[in-house]
């Protein structure tokens, strides 16, 4: 039975090649889109899942109070104290903030910069059991001169040989001995890591949260209970009992697998995913898939006139409904499986493009968790088969044989209604996509052209690697300024686009000055950045007292009421000499934070980035000269970035979203047109006789076109009415996550409505024209 079903189904599919192709093609496009997003979502959700201890390892963060910010860093003393009082803590590991800095590794002639070598506790690998290729985890970071490298770093320096025992120079002077090489885990991690050394501090005192703490709970510990126990233990600490303000403080232990997507803390060096983006993409790709399924259903039903006779006969021959449903589902399944194969091909072909677009490294066939992916695809296929084949199967199998065999195909209005609803759903989705696309585009353009508060063109940034260079910067600055094309030179620590920030809390005149961002600069910083003083004046080396003076931004003026303090002393007895415009620091989602700019002193953070403005003529020569000069100062490989390029990172994810939506929208619209095409062709086919009669009665081609179009236009306009509010709600909720956002106008909505109507009229007319223009006799003779 099954084999025959299969055979007949194949013959049927072959007979209606055109429809079958359309069916399969539409479905495979939908599936391919869904597959790619599935890979992306899987990847986003797979962070740190390689770790066999993942469910018991937590990252600790601290929240000062109910209305305070949460910070990811903590003092080194915290973890041992907690462990003492909490039996659930099996182990802990910390890494030290000041150990994470760019290092120059060299072995013989090979040298390379490495940014992410962590200074950790010796027992770090109890929490994160990497697989060691060379050396042993246990003894690898026992002493201060040992270094563990990741496989890629090791291979870049030592090639494919075993480097254990070899000497490695860090920053050309410190000697380290390679003690181990570990394989990169097969899922991404929330921290960027390229190697490990022993942390250089055992603790900086309770008041200095310079460590990131990870706790390993005993297996089977409930996360909620664990958090409660930690907080109970915390409140019992002597130093917390002593200080009343500490008693509001809470600890948050976040499972390590959730850090990437769900961490909410500040001062967090971890990679951050955007769970909203994952949800949006999964949602929209599911819609795409549903549209493809709907298409499939519609195309199958449209064909069913031809299948009606066959169905009727089968029933008369004794087929029960179940037999027929099975038979039609077989047919659907074949098409779905072919579509899946095609979708895999499409996905594989378009993945490199997607990877470039999204700056990712996804792959289909070397996927790290094939079981999971296979299961997901299986479920999706089951869903697709039921959704796309189910209705058609039930619909076809419930024909009454007598009517069908008499040639009376007038199906109930039910099925037509159903198809209209399906088509409307497709159009609703397509219209929402179009509107979303236009609004995303508008917002991305807005972001790109937004006044960021500084001039990012022709600004070069590079790092100072030696403290002595920084301390004797003035003569170097003078030399740099002599280079042809260099107009301004200064230094800074956190230039725009850098997400890290020093945040301080002080008191002034009895008023708290909380959450003040501090940027350390050198003189002439505002000249390099093209930031004029809105009031007061810029800091300048001409004024001797300016070495302790500060500038503030508008947000600080507003938050702390500094209007009347310009020219007067403020926190730390520093004089506010002027106010600059707010600038975008971390991204368009964040409004400018109250910021103070202070000149580097012994007590401030170090301004360790050289930032300089060039005039933009003969840039190549200018850069070459800067490089020569700098290498005579610091004999390391010269690395630099342009500010406009590095700053673009703050909105890159939205540029990517825009690009993805472009693809989504066109595909969705194409699928909707395909569906419309099918329904139109079906309607025309069904009404051939009516059209013939009308023509005999004197109707012209244009009357017929009007008549057919009318039905569809009503559908599309209804779809617009439903889609527009949905799109409006989605768009405004998305836009509200931006501190800098474009205003929504009526245009995207009008444009979407126009496009949908135009597409409908064109598609329907194309189908109807042939029949409307044919000789009526042919249509009538047919019966």
């Amino acid at each position, binding site marked *: 039975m099954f084999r*025959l079903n299969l055979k007949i189904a194949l*013959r049927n599919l072959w007979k209606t090649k055109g429809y079958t192709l359309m069916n399969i093609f539409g479905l495979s496009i939908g599936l391919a889109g869904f597959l790619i997003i599935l890979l992306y979502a899987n990847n986003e959700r797979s962070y740190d899942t390689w770790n066999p201890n993942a469910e018991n390892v937590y990252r600790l963060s601290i929240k000062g109070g109910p209305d305070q910010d949460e910070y990811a860093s903590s003092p080194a003393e915290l973890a041992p104290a907690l462990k003492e009082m909490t039996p659930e803590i099996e182990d802990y590991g910390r890494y030290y903030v000041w150990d994470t800095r760019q290092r120059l590794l060299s072995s013989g002639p090979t040298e390379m910069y490495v940014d992410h070598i962590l200074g950790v506790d010796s027992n770090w690998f109890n929490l994160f059991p990497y697989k060691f290729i060379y050396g042993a985890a246990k003894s690898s970071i026992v002493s201060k001169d040992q270094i563990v490298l990741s496989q890629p770093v090791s291979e870049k320096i030592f090639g494919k040989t075993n480097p254990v025992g070899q000497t490695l120079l860090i920053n050309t002077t410190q000697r380290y001995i390679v003690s181990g090489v570990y394989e990169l885990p097969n899922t991404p991690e929330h921290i960027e890591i390229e190697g490990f050394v022993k942390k250089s501090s055992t603790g900086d005192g309770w008041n200095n949260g310079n460590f990131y703490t990870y706790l390993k709970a005993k297996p089977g510990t409930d996360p909620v209970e664990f958090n409660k126990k930690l907080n109970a233990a915390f409140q019992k600490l002597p130093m917390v009992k002593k200080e009343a303000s500490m008693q509001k403080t809470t600890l948050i232990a976040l499972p390590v697998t959730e850090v990437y997507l769900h961490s909410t803390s500040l001062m967090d060096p971890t990679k951050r995913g955007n769970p909203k983006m994952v949800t949006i993409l999964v949602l929209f790709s599911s819609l795409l898939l549903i549209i493809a399924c709907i298409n499939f259903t519609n195309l199958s039903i449209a064909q069913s006139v031809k299948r009606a006779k066959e169905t*009727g*006969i089968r029933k*008369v*021959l004794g087929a*029960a409904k179940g*037999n027929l449903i099975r038979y039609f589902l077989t047919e659907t399944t074949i098409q779905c499986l072919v579509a899946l194969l095609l979708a895999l091909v499409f996905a594989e072909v378009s993945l490199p493009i997607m990877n470039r677009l999204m700056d990712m490294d996804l792959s289909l066939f070397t996927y790290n968790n094939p079981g999971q992916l296979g299961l997901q695809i299986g479920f999706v296929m089951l869903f697709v088969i039921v959704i796309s084949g189910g209705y058609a199967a039930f619909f076809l199998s419930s024909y009454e044989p*007598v009517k069908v*065999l008499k040639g009376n195909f007038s199906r109930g209005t039910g099925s037509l209604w159903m198809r209209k609803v399906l088509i409307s759903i497709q159009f609703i989705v397509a219209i929402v996509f179009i509107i979303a696309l236009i609004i995303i585009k508008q917002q991305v353009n807005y972001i790109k052209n937004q006044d960021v508060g500084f001039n990012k063109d022709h600004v070069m940034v590079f790092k100072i690697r030696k403290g002595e260079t920084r301390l004797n910067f003035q003569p170097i600055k003078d030399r740099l300024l002599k280079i042809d094309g260099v107009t301004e030179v200064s230094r800074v620590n956190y230039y725009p686009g850098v997400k890290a920030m020093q945040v301080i809390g002080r008191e002034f005149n009895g008023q708290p000055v909380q959450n003040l961002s501090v940027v350390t600069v050198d003189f002439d910083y505002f000249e390099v950045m093209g930031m004029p003083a809105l009031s007061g004046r810029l800091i300048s080396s001409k004024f001797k007292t300016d070495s302790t003076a500060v500038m503030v931004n508008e947000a600080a003026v507003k938050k702390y009421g500094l209007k009347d303090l310009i020219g007067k002393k403020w926190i730390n007895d520093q004089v506010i000499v002027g106010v600059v415009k707010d600038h975008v620091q971390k991204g368009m989602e964040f409004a400018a934070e109250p910021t103070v700019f202070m000149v580097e002193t012994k007590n401030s953070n170090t301004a360790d980035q050289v930032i300089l403005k060039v005039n933009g003529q003969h840039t190549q020569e200018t850069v070459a000269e800067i490089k020569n000069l700098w290498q005579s100062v610091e004999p390391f490989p010269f690395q630099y970035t342009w500010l406009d390029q590095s700053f673009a990172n703050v909105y890159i994810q939205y540029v990517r979203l825009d690009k993805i939506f472009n693809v989504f929208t066109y595909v969705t619209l194409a699928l909707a047109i395909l569906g419309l095409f099918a329904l139109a062709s079906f309607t025309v086919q069904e009404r051939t006789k009516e059209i013939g009669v009308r023509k005999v009665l004197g109707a012209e081609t244009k009357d017929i076109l009007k008549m057919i179009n009318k039905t569809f236009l009503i559908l599309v306009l209804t779809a617009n009415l439903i889609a527009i509010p949905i799109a409006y709600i989605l768009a405004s909720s998305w836009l509200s996550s931006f501190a800098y956002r474009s205003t929504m106008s009526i245009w995207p909505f009008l444009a979407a409505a126009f496009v949908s109507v135009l597409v409908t009229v064109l598609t329907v007319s194309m189908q109807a024209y042939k029949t409307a223009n044919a000789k009526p006799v042919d249509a009538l003779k047919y019966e």
Partner: protein
Amino acid sequence: MIILKNIEKYYANKGVKSYILRHVSTEIKQGEFVSIMGPSGAGKSTLLNILGMLEEPTYGEYEFMGEDVLSLNERKRIELYRNHIGFVFQAYHLIDEMTVAENIEAPLLYKKVSGAERKSRVADVLDRFNMVAKKDLFPNQLSGGQQQLVGIARALVAQPSIILADEPTGNLQSAQALQIMDLFKKLNEEEGITIIQVTHSEVNAAYGSRILHLLDGVIKEDIAVEQSV
């Protein structure tokens, strides 16, 4: 084998009942060859459809082999006609996507006959109808008469006790029509299969043993045919 009591069929249209069948009562015994005749619109096809359980009467009782058909659920009814009734249509109604052999095999599939038995039965029937050479052709590669032969073969393969034929020769030339009618007669006489056919043709009706004349939904005459051949 078949007992009809007071069968009525009408369509209510805006309160006005338009009758297709009225007070149809009759009994058809095993082994009879009945022809239903009458002008267009007399209700012949409807009566046949009711007999074949493709339609339900509005009123009346229908007993098929001792079972009250109208009280059966759909599953039972399908079971009943799967096992006992073979249909032959004026327009043949072969499945275009199936070969001759597969068309013939189709009813057996729904009866859940085993594969080996299906093969042998289909081979048997093909042999009997001299169509072995044509078994892999598709219906549109056959002439009308040949298609109707396949239609009859398909009706017979499930070994029904009754064949219902709706104008089986209506689309055929007279030579082919005669051939089909001869076949029916032979099946009736040699295998004892009950045959009920709807026909316009006096000649065809003469092959049968009994004629029911329908006029405006009422049985006007019920006559036995003199066997002249």
